[in-house]
């Protein structure tokens, strides 16, 4: 379970621009530890949160693709070297042109499998032990949210004020110590 000792605060928004204002004000106030929840991937949210930083998933894809291509090359050339069949067509035992097809398929397969792994790792999936209050059905419907899972107790009033003033239609807070919620 979590070692969180702070306060859990949740603000629900019905308008995207209010949410963006809330995120902006939190950033300007140097308050961290928040998670934005949205029913769809709006690029405005990702831009304001990540400021153009790309996802590391791309390195997983590259690693997978290179690994796959290498496996494709090794699988074909080493196995055919171990069983050196000379075909009637006269192709050499290790023939790169026909192996290119296998290498291509292994490149794509490796890239896809590693991308899946990267997405699972970075998205924090599977997340079956989530805070039920934070897994808010309104967020998969039409609302947006900003959630603090472990906000410093002393900042509670300040955070709640920012959320309310930016247009949150509902701001709730409670004990966070019972829950284990991955943070950004």
């Amino acid at each position: 379970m979590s070692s969180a000792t702070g306060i859990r605060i949740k603000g629900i928004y019905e308008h995207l621009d209010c949410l963006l204002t809330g995120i902006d004000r939190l950033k300007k106030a140097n308050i961290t530890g928040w998670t934005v929840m949205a029913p769809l991937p709006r690029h405005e949210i990702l831009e304001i949160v990540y400021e153009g930083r790309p996802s590391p998933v791309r390195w997983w894809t590259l690693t997978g693709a290179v690994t796959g291509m290498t496996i494709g090359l090794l699988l074909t050339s080493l196995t055919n070297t171990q069983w050196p069949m000379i075909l009637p067509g006269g192709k050499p035992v290790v023939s790169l042109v026909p192996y290119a097809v296998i290498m291509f398929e292994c490149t794509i397969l490796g890239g896809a499998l590693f991308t899946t792994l990267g997405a699972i790792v970075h998205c924090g999936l599977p997340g079956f032990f989530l805070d039920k209050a934070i897994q808010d059905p309104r967020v998969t419907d039409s609302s947006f949210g900003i959630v603090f899972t472990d906000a410093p107790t002393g900042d509670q009033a300040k955070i709640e004020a920012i959320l309310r003033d930016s247009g949150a239609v509902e701001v709730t807070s409670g004990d966070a110590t019972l829950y284990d919620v991955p943070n950004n």
Partner: protein
Amino acid sequence: MKDVYSTGEPNRPESYGAANRDIIRVLLKPSAAYFAMLFVAVSMMLFGVWCEYQQIRWGMGVANIKHPTMWGVYIVTFVFWVGIGHAGTLISAILYLVRSRWRTGVYRASEAMTVFAVMTALLFPVLHLGRMWQNYWFFPYPNQRQLWMNFKSPLMWDVFAISTYFTVSAIFFYVGLVPDIAIFRDHSKGLVKKVYGLLSLGWRGTHRQWHHYMAAYGFFAALAAPLVLSVHSVVSWDFAMANTAGWHSTIFPPYFVAGAIFSGCAMVITLLMPLTYAFNWHAYVNIWHFDALAKMCLLTSAILTYAYGMEYFIGWYSQNPYEQAIFFWRADPWADYGWAFYIMVFCNCVAPLPWYFQKLRTNPWALFIISIFINIGMWFERFNIIVSSLAHNFDPATWDYYWPSWIEWGILIGSTGWFFTWFLLFVKTFPAIAITEIKEMIPPPLKGSLEAK
């Protein structure tokens, strides 16, 4: 009804919540018509299972596959289903990368079609083996004889191509489904909620999840896009790499890819047209989408018609007597398979022509009926290529007439039932329209108070 016949984009729902509610409606109690369709599909599948049981019990002799026609209906149907799968990846991956707007309403059902079509296709090499329990011989595995596959063979390329295609398509399909299954989870109760909860992997829609998810989704699309072109190219090499008259041609890869997209888009029309009416999806899928699919079919039909003509030109221009003989024999209406050739030409080259008129491209009945003609024509195209070349090969002493046995027809019917069973179960239990991507088409709710730069 105005929306149904509109050739413009459908009127989207006003809010994200309305989109959820519209699509979640499919979870309501199924109608009698749904159960009737499911009953027919399951019955066809069970008939196929029974035919396969006969084949296992009595041996491959119950199929009419024999020398010289060692590839019959099983390989014809294998190529047909792999081809059907192509449109799904084209629509979900390539049209995603080029940000085509009409893709959004139809891509989830097309992806499902891809996965189930490739699952159906994968049955056939195994059924064709006869001894299906030895299908692991297809794959490279360490064994005591240190015997490895011949990686120079296009048949091995095909094993890798289809396996990779299925794996990548299935991952792409499931990854796209995760946020939508989370929506279903949040609108369900009891055991159903638990099942959707498990399948949604605890998705919450946090900024962290969306950030990495969108990056991964883009990479999946980029990885799947070349597969659209490569998989059917590799399938075509199963034939083109062989020194068989009528097969040994460099035109095969683009010809097969165009044919695959042609048949796949037609199958999307065949599947989605009744569903749009059954589930009242007119706010998401309307004639605008079908019109775009019909235009794709027209383009690929023109490519196919060119390829058919070019095969004859090459046969004549090469002055190769074997090439000329097979092509002229195929087109002889009184020859063994002349009827199959003319069914192919009519269904693939002539039947789509009415779609050049917008009135017929936007008429639901014309769309549905012509799409069925195309499906039939594309099966006969593969029959025409595979069977006629083998039955009429180099040595006249070996020429034979192949006609599938009822067991082979039964397995073909069973495979269709297998495909439709999966598809019907899918549309009733999962979002067959991508809710999250539909939401991206809806203007976001704004209060007009933005101060963030």
